[in-house]
């Protein structure tokens, strides 16, 4: 494959993205603007994540893509194939073997290590967007650390539903400074944001990159009398029996039948192999 530069983007673009990534790592949780490129896929399909992955990949890397935890969904298959074709890197479905993992809306169940990079696809990087529509104002709020409004949203949740009903994209405070949208991962995954791996977030349409370096403190916002609760469906996985993994609810017939299975397909398959 010689028609493309390695990993699709030209070297200048990758340098530009790496500069943004370095700045993001230097200021954990801060949204760094970058000149997002047009990618051969529609906005909303992970153009930000793909650009960050392209800037991180080296020929020796082993690449894994998950979409809602699964390796075999359209988005994951397409992006994996994209980099197989344009970068010629090795790919894998095994979390532990991958060096770069691009993810949409999940953090793998398997604990990540220091040699791994987790790349998130982010639709809306601004946690305050729906509370304060003016971008000039939200930037000022970040700069001056005025985050009272974020708690107003949580207050509204409790007032209306009796508990904090925000179940995904649950706001976190990074290193006691910036409030960050962890992308639409379920709040069950929030504790895993404190990780040994480097975590990079790319929002293509919104042209923002941010990062959580390894071992950074990430605290989910809450009230003293309504502490953060990383809840999940109260079932074991119907396939592997795991009780500590995040579950998808699958409707199996039209008479109300349903089953709960691990959303992380690699984790589930691995457990079933071990059991067999």
């Amino acid at each position, binding site marked *: 494959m010689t028609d493309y530069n390695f990993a699709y983007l030209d070297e200048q673009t990758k340098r530009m993205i790496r500069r943004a990534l370095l700045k993001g790592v230097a200021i954990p949780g801060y949204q760094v603007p970058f000149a997002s490129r047009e990618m051969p896929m529609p906005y909303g399909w992970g153009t930000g994540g793909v650009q960050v992955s392209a800037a991180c990949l080296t020929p020796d890397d082993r690449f894994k893509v998950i979409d809602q935890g699964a390796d075999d969904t359209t988005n994951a298959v397409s992006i994996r194939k994209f980099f197989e074709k344009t970068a010629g890197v090795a790919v894998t479905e095994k979390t532990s073997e991958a060096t770069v993992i691009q993810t949409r809306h999940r953090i793998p169940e398997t604990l990540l290590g220091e040699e791994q990079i987790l790349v998130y696809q982010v639709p809306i990087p601004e946690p305050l967007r729906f509370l304060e529509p003016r971008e000039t104002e939200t930037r000022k709020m970040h700069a001056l650390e005025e985050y009272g409004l974020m708690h107003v949203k949580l*207050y509204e949740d409790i007032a209306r539903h009796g508990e904090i009903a925000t179940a995904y994209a649950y706001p976190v405070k990074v290193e006691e400074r910036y409030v960050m949208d962890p992308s639409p991962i379920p709040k069950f995954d929030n504790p895993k944001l404190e990780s040994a791996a480097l975590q990079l977030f790319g929002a293509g349409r919104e042209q923002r990159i941010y990062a959580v370096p390894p071992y950074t403190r990430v605290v989910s916002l809450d009230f003293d009398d309504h502490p953060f609760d990383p809840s999940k469906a109260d079932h074991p996985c119907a396939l592997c029996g795991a009780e500590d993994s995040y579950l998808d609810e699958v409707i199996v017939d039209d008479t109300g039948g349903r089953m709960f299975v691990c959303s992380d397909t690699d984790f589930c398959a691995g457990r079933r192999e071990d059991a067999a």
Partner: protein
Amino acid sequence: MTPLLDVRSLTKTYGSRTGCADVSFTLYPGEVMGIVGESGSGKSTLLNCLAGHLEPDRGEVFFDTRTDGPRDTLRMSEPERRMLGRTDWAFVHQNPRDGLRMRISAGGNVGERLMAVGARHYAEIRTAAEDWLDRVEISTNRIDDRPAAFSGGMQQRLQIARNLVTGPRLVFMDEPTGGLDVSVQARLLDLLRGLVRRMGLSAIVVTHDLAVVRLLADRLMVMKDGHVVETGLTDQVLDDPQHGYTQLLVSSVLQV
């Protein structure tokens, strides 16, 4: 006694047009100052300059801060000024829609300032919100309703509660009774007067309605074309106006 607010030759122009020119006055703790004048006389420009919403061209505004004594708010850093804006200052807009978050419940609206200064205990925030709704005569069972479901008078009272919850020392009011019918106006004025007296608030009230200042204000400042034309005790200015424009203003009030 140190004045709470000491304004010195404040000037704001919009290009070649004058917003307000060379305004100076002092406001002492517990005092209510009324600013009257016709539309376009620069009252709102002046108020917005004082509250830090607009940047004046010249002048100084010294505010007696709790910690450091009198400081020029125009030369403060922006974080400090915004901090004042949500602790020691309050701003009541003419249109409650400008001062409220219409998509957030009444309780959330009142609690916002508390959370902005660091309250993180849900039950305490809620108790404070209930207490303040009660003080502004809104039934506490409406705490989870959105302001959109409130009448105009209730919205205005909610805005007042939301502003006073952090115990400010200085309240800016921009036509607080504008757009309300007379009986609702009377109730709101009664409430405001009670709150101002009980909490020992200082306030600057901008209005074109002389009846409002007669009830609320201790002192009065009359503005015309950006200039202050007359100042004095409210009753003195209204009963014995000296300046030609003030005489016109007082005689323009319709008698029923």
